C-alpha cells in the first residue's frame, strides 16, 4: 500500500473544503478526505449531488483551494498553484467550448498557451482529432456541432496538451441514453490508448460500474468506500453504498461467529449462512443489517433447499426480467429478480406462497 502511495498520480491527504467562515457556520463540502489515485487508472468519484465529488475535482484542477490538507500530483505539491500551472486538464460538464473558435482552434488553444511550436501543434491537433474521430469537422464552428460532437471536441481539447491527469466532470450527463452508452465505451478506449489517469465524476452508478477501474462512493463530503466495481456492488461496506448502487434487500439478522472477512449470520427470517464482513464490525449477537441483491435470490425448485419463504404480493415486468415482491412471515418485504427466459418461466402469481433460495456467498453485513 505504501508503495502505491509513492507513485500515486493524485494523492489527497486529509483534505477539507469549507465554504464560509468556519466549520460551524459554513458549509463543509469535503471533510478530511484522504485518497490515493494510481497512475493509469480510470477512477470514478460517485455520489449524489452535493456529496463533494465536484468540489474534490475542482480542488485537483485548482479552481478552488483546500481549507485544510494537501494534494500531490506524482509527488509534487499542488497547493497555491493556479490552474494554468497544473499539468491537469478538465472536461467540463457543459463542455465550455470557445464559441468564437473553430474545432481545431479550440483544440490547439492549450498547446498555444504552452508555447508549443506551430508544426507540433498541427500534428498534435490532427492526432487527437483522429483519436476522437472528428477529423472531418476540424474547421467547423463549435455551435454547428451536435451534443455528442461537442463532447468529443471537449475531450480532444483536454487531451491535446497531454495532461498527466484528465478530470471529467459529469461529461455524459447532457447526452441522451444511446449516445451516453457509446461514449462510455469510447472513454474507456481513450483511457486505454492514451494511458492517462482519468478521474471521472458521476452520479450515475451504472456509468461508474461499467467504466471504472476503481470507484469511490461519496456522501456528505466523506468517502464511504473505495474499491473496484465488483467490491462496491457485491461487498458494499455501508448501508448507503448498498442502497445507492443498484437494488438491494436489507434484512435484519445476528452475527453468530466471525472468521476474518466472513461471518456466520442468522437472519431473523430464519436462514443461517455465511456473509461478508466489513472492516468496522458490529459485535457478536447484536442485530445487524444484512444485504442481499435481488438477483441473488431465486425460487427454490422442487427438491432444492428452501432458505426463506413468503407470499408474493406484487409482480412487475420490465422486459428483460421480473421483480417479485414477497412478504415474509417476519413482516419484512423481500425483492426477488428473475431473468426473462421465456413464457413458461413465469409460473408464480400474486398471492402464491413462494419458496426462496439464496445463492452461495451472496450476503453482506452492512455498517451503518
Amino acid at each position, binding site marked *: 500500500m505504501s508503495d502505491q502511495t509513492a507513485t500515486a498520480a493524485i494523492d489527497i491527504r486529509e483534505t477539507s473544503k469549507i465554504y464560509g467562515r468556519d466549520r460551524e457556520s459554513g458549509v463543509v463540502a469535503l471533510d478530511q478526505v484522504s485518497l490515493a489515485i494510481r497512475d493509469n487508472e480510470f477512477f470514478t468519484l460517485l455520489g449524489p449531488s452535493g456529496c463533494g465529488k465536484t468540489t474534490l475535482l475542482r480542488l485537483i484542477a485548482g479552481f478552488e483551494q483546500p481549507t485544510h490538507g494537501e494534494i500531490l500530483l506524482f509527488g509534487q505539491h499542488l497547493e497555491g498553484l493556479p490552474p494554468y500551472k497544473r499539468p491537469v*486538464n478538465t472536461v467540463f460538464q457543459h463542455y465550455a467550448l470557445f*464559441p468564437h473558435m473553430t474545432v481545431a482552434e479550440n483544440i490547439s488553444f492549450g498547446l498555444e*498557451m504552452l508555447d508549443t511550436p506551430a508544426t507540433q501543434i498541427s500534428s498534435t491537433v490532427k492526432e487527437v482529432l483522429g483519436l476522437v474521430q472528428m477529423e472531418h469537422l476540424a474547421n467547423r464552428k463549435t455551435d454547428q456541432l451536435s451534443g455528442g460532437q461537442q463532447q468529443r471536441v471537449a475531450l480532444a481539447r483536454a487531451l491535446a496538451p497531454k495532461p498527466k491527469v484528465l478530470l471529467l466532470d459529469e461529461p455524459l450527463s447532457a447526452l441522451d441514453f444511446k449516445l451516453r452508452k457509446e461514449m462510455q465505451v469510447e472513454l474507456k478506449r481513450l483511457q486505454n490508448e492514451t494511458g492517462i489517469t482519468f478521474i471521472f465524476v458521476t452520479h450515475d452508478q451504472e456509468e461508474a460500474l461499467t467504466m471504472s477501474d476503481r470507484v469511490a462512493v461519496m456522501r456528505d463530503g466523506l468517502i464511504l468506500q473505495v474499491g473496484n466495481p465488483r467490491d462496491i456492488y457485491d461487498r458494499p461496506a455501508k448501508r448507503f453504498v448498498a442502497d445507492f448502487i443498484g437494488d438491494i434487500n436489507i434484512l435484519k439478522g445476528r452475527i453468530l461467529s466471525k472468521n476474518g472477512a466472513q461471518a456466520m449470520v442468522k437472519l431473523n427470517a430464519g436462514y443461517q449462512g455465511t456473509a461478508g464482513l466489513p472492516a468496522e464490525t458490529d459485535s457478536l449477537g447484536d442485530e445487524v443489517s444484512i444485504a442481499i441483491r435481488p438477483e441473488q435470490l431465486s425460487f427454490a425448485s422442487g427438491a432444492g433447499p428452501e432458505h426463506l419463504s413468503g407470499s408474493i404480493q406484487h409482480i412487475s415486468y420490465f422486459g428483460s426480467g421480473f421483480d417479485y415482491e414477497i412478504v415474509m412471515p417476519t413482516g419484512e418485504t423481500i425483492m426477488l429478480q428473475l431473468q426473462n427466459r421465456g413464457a413458461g418461466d413465469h409460473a408464480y402469481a400474486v398471492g402464491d406462497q413462494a419458496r426462496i433460495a439464496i445463492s452461495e456467498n451472496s450476503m453482506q453485513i452492512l455498517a451503518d
Partner: protein
Amino acid sequence: MSDQPSANIQLSSSAVAEEKRLRNTRLGLLAPGILTIFCIGIMPLSIVLVYSFLEPGDFGGVSWVLSFDAYVQLLFEEDIFDETLSFTTDYLQIFLRSVSLGLFTTIACLLVGFPTAYFIATQPPARRNAWLFLITIPFWTNLLIRTYAMLLILRDQGIINLALIEIGLIDRAIPLLYTDFAVCLGLVYAYLPFMVLPIFASLEKLDFRLVEASYDLYATRFKVLKRIIIPLAKPGIAAGCILVLIPSLGAFITPALLGGGKSLMIGNLIELQFGQARNWPFGSAIALVLMVLVMLSLMTYLRYGTTRKGAPGHG
C-alpha cells in the same frame, strides 16, 4: 365545360382583389412606422441636404438659388477682392482636430469603461443593478450643468489645482481649463455610460465557465483577457465605441465651455454657421460631410472589421 374558363377568370380576379386587400392591410399596419421614420429620419435630413445646395439668405435662412458654394467653401478660400479661389486647410484642420479628439475620447472611454463594465458584470446579480444605477445617475442632470461643474473642478481656483498647491506639488495653478485635455475629459465624462452599458451587456452574457476552461488550458490572466474575454465582448466594445465616437465628433457644448472657444470643433463650427455667421447652407454642408464620413467608416468597419478568420465552412 364551357363555363370552366370563366370560372377560372373569376377565381383569378378574386385572387387579385384578395392580394390587393392584403397589401393595403399591410400598408395600413406599417403606416405608423413608415410615418415615424419619414418624419424624424428622412425629412429633416432631406431639408439639410437641400439647404446645403442653396445660397445663404441675408438674415439667416436660405435663398432658393442652386449653388455649390457651401461645398467649395470647405476646401477653398475666396479672395475678397478678385474673387479667385485658393486652397485652404482651415476647415480640414477643424475636421482633423475633431476626429482626433473624438478618437482620444473613445479610447479613453474604452480604457476606463471596459474595466468598469467587467467589474459590474462580475458582481453578484443583486449588486449589479445598484452599480448600473450609479453609472446612469449623471444622465438625469442636464449636460450643460454637469459641464459647468466640470469647469469648476478644472479652473485655476478649482479643487484639483487648490489641492495640488496645498500638498505642495506645484507653486502656481497649472492651466487645466480651456485645453484639449479639458475638452477630452469633459467628453469622456459625458459619454462614458454609452461605453459601459453595451460592454456590460455583452460581458453579462459571457459564460464565465469559458474563462475557467481557458485557465485550465494553461492561459494566464492576460491571455484569458486577450484570447477569450475581449473577443467575446467584441460586439459590446464595437457598439460602445460607435456610441461614444459619433456624438463626441459632433459635440459642441463641451468644447465650447471647456475648450473656451480656443479650439474650434466641428460641432462649434456648425453651430456658428447657423448662428452668428448666418450661413445655413455651409452649416448643412459640414453636417452632411461629417455624416457621410462617419457612415463610410462604419460601413468599412462592418465589411472588413467583423469578418473573422476561420469563418464557418459548409459541409
